[in-house]
Each structure stands twice: as structure tokens, then as C-alpha cells.
């Protein structure tokens, strides 16, 4: 993502008046503000969301959830809470990781892109840094993780029917968690920035 960002910025900002380090700066801001949290969340909605929904859905239609209830277990707490907790706990790591990889990608791209040198890029990504942007991205990613895990759990947990419905529930999980993530992206950006 970082590489693509850098290349596109370089392509669009080919203007003698614009200082070239702005390309690096722009790449950094885009990565921090949007891609590392939102795009990663959307990708994970596809992966984690469908995973959670199909796992819970399978447990539902094979009556494993009923079996848990019979044994006096509060199945919702027992199955869903750990998933939400684990995902919310782990997503900051993924987000920071994606920031680093993205910035590195831009750096690699700067070697072969016309109108951008590695030096300009490094100057760009190291100037005018605002730590709050990282906080902002982390806050967003925490919220997104919660949304993805809970929306997907809901769809899996309340699946009814057979194998076909499990498939459907996991599709719904991905679609709805993506939509809710995008909506909250707007809301959080309005609130935080």
C-alpha cells in the first residue's frame, strides 16, 4: 500500500513548485490516518470475520452450542468474549506492523519512481510528525476490531439451519462488519480529528 501510495503521489505531484519531500509526507499521513487502520480492518473483516462466523455457525447448527447450554455454560460468554478480547488485544500490533511495512514499501518504491528520490522520501516521512495520528489510528483499529468480532459473532451465533446457512452467515458477517467499519470510520474521524 505504501509503495502504491508513494508512486501515485509522485505521479500526481510532478510540479516544480511543490517540494518533493511532500510525497513522502503525504504517503506517511495516508498510511497512518487511513490505510493502516481502515484498510487493514477491511481485510481482516474478510479473514477474521468469516472465520468467527463460520466457526460459531457450525457450532450452532451441529448443536454444540445447545450442548454447552445443557452443561450449564453460558455459551455466549464462553464463546464470544474470548474472541472479542483476543482480537481487540492483538489488532494494535497488526496496525503498527502495517504502518511500518507501508512506510518501508514507499521507501522501496522511491528507488524506481521518476520524480522521487529515497532521500526526499525519508525527509518527507520524518518531517512534521504528529504522534496523535498514531493514537488516532490505534483508537480506530480498536473500535474496528470490536465491531468485526462482535458483528461476526452475532451472525454466527444466531445462524439457523444447515451448512448452507453457515456459509450465508459468514458472508453476512463480512458484508455487515465491513459496512459498519466504514460507517464508524467516518464517525470516529469526525469526532477525533
Amino acid at each position, binding site marked *: 500500500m505504501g509503495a502504491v501510495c508513494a508512486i501515485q503521489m509522485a505521479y500526481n505531484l510532478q510540479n516544480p513548485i511543490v517540494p518533493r519531500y511532500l510525497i513522502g509526507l503525504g504517503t506517511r499521513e495516508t498510511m497512518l490516518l487511513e490505510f493502516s487502520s481502515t484498510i487493514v480492518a477491511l481485510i481482516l473483516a474478510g479473514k477474521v470475520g468469516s472465520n468467527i462466523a463460520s466457526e460459531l455457525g*457450525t457450532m450452532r447448527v*451441529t*448443536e*454444540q452450542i*445447545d*450442548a454447552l*447450554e*445443557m*452443561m*450449564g*455454560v453460558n455459551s455466549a460468554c464462553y464463546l464470544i468474549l474470548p474472541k472479542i478480547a483476543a482480537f481487540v488485544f492483538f489488532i494494535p500490533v497488526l496496525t503498527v506492523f502495517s504502518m511500518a511495512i507501508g512506510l518501508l514499501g514507499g521507501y522501496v518504491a522511491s528507488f524506481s519512481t521518476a520524480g522521487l528520490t529515497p532521500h526526499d522520501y525519508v525527509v518527507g516521512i520524518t518531517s512534521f510528525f504528529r504522534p496523535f495520528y498514531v493514537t488516532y489510528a490505534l483508537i480506530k483499529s480498536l473500535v474496528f476490531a470490536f465491531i468485526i468480532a462482535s458483528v461476526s459473532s452475532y451472525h454466527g451465533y444466531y445462524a439457523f439451519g444447515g451448512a448452507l446457512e453457515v456459509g450465508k452467515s459468514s458472508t453476512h458477517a463480512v458484508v455487515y462488519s465491513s459496512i459498519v467499519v466504514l460507517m464508524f470510520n467516518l464517525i470516529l474521524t469526525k469526532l477525533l480529528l
Partner: protein
Amino acid sequence: MIEVKNVCKEFSDVKVLYDICAEFLPGKTNLTIGQSGSGKTVLLKCIAGLHSVTSGDILYDGRSFCAMNEKQRKEIRKEMGMVFQGGALFDSNTVEENVMFPLEMFTRMTFEERRERANECLKRVNIINANKKYPSEISGGMQKRVAIARAIALNPKYLYCDEPNSGLDPVTSIVIDNLIKDITVEYNITTIVNTHDMNSVMEIGDKIIFIYKGRKKWEGTSAEIFSSGVKELDDFVFASERMKKIREMSK
């Protein structure tokens, strides 16, 4: 003793059970029979409290199950064992862990005690040397038997089996049927078995309840089933042409 009193059950818009009344006695294998989709599973889950009833009541030794709070229900759940249609073993646990699970939830036994009890139950259902296997690695008949072992781990007073021999060959079916019957008599359990298999009906049915499209149409013993005079039941029992011929011959 379990009494089912005028139970009706609706799901949002569809009515599944209409005014069911029945009594289930200890030490007996009570069968609920009926076609697929007639509402046997729903009735069993209402009795076990997995579905709430829309109207009517379920009495356990005279105590109303529907009026109980969560804590009282949990007390009674301790005395219930359930074998679900597909076995419903936990995929990510081994056979042994599956049988140990209810013990972990309801008792204060140590790990060793639990394992010992689990092995006892597994031996009772003739599962040997499969303790460390996962449910996906054993056959359907074995899964059912492990499910039975899990259901009896806590020495239940009530045992519910939902189509314990669906999808099994006739020989394995009989093994499972006899197992259920033996356990019932051995521990004086109130057992309710859902089935649509006529073999089990004749083999183990002490008392039989016939459900047709959510209504109870008939109840009696396996000896009376051929002379019930209820048209829907006759259609169910003599579904195949061969059975009809046998009936003609015996007349």
C-alpha cells in the same frame, strides 16, 4: 417423573407444537416417534429447557421448570444428559476431554478423578483406545457412543436422546438402542428417545408417543402400535409396501 402439560411452541410466525400433554416415567425408555419435521426435536428441547415454551408447562417431579430461575434450572440441568442428533461433540476437544467437560462444569473433581470417571463411562459404551482421538477421526457410531458417554458422565436422572441411530447401519443401531435401554434400567433413568426407526420402536419402546405435524396423535406401548386405529400412525408404521403386505398376511 417428567410431565408435559399443554405445551405449545411457536417460532416468531410458525407454530410447531400444538397442545402436547405427556408423562415420562423413571426406569422406562419413552419414545417419541413421528416423521421428520413433525416437531420431535423441538419438543425434546422444550423439555430440556433449550427452547422456552410459548404456553403450557413442564414439571420435573411436580416442580415447574418454566417458572424456575437460572440458578434452579442449573441445579436440574446437572441431572440431565442429552445426546444430540449429530452427537454434538466439541470438535476441538479429544474424546476424553469431551466426556470430562460436564464434570469440569458441574463438579469439583480433580483432573485425575475426572479422567477416571470419563474412562469409566467410555468403557461402559465400549470405547477403548480412542481417548486421545478427535471427533472427526472416529466413525459416526463411535461419535454417538461418545456422546452417550458424555451424557451419562454425571449419572443423570434424565436422559434425552435425539435420533440416536439416525445415519447408522442396522447392527450399530441395535447396539446403541440396547445400550440406551440397559443404562436406563441400570440407573433407573427417565429416558426420552426421539426416533423414526421402527426397529428401535419395537426393540426398546416401553412407552410410545406419536407426534404428527406438531400434535400428539397417539400414545401406548409397542405391543399396541399395530392396532391403534389411528390413520396417521398406520401410515407411519406401514409406510412401505412390504410392511403393508406383512400386515395383510397377518390378518
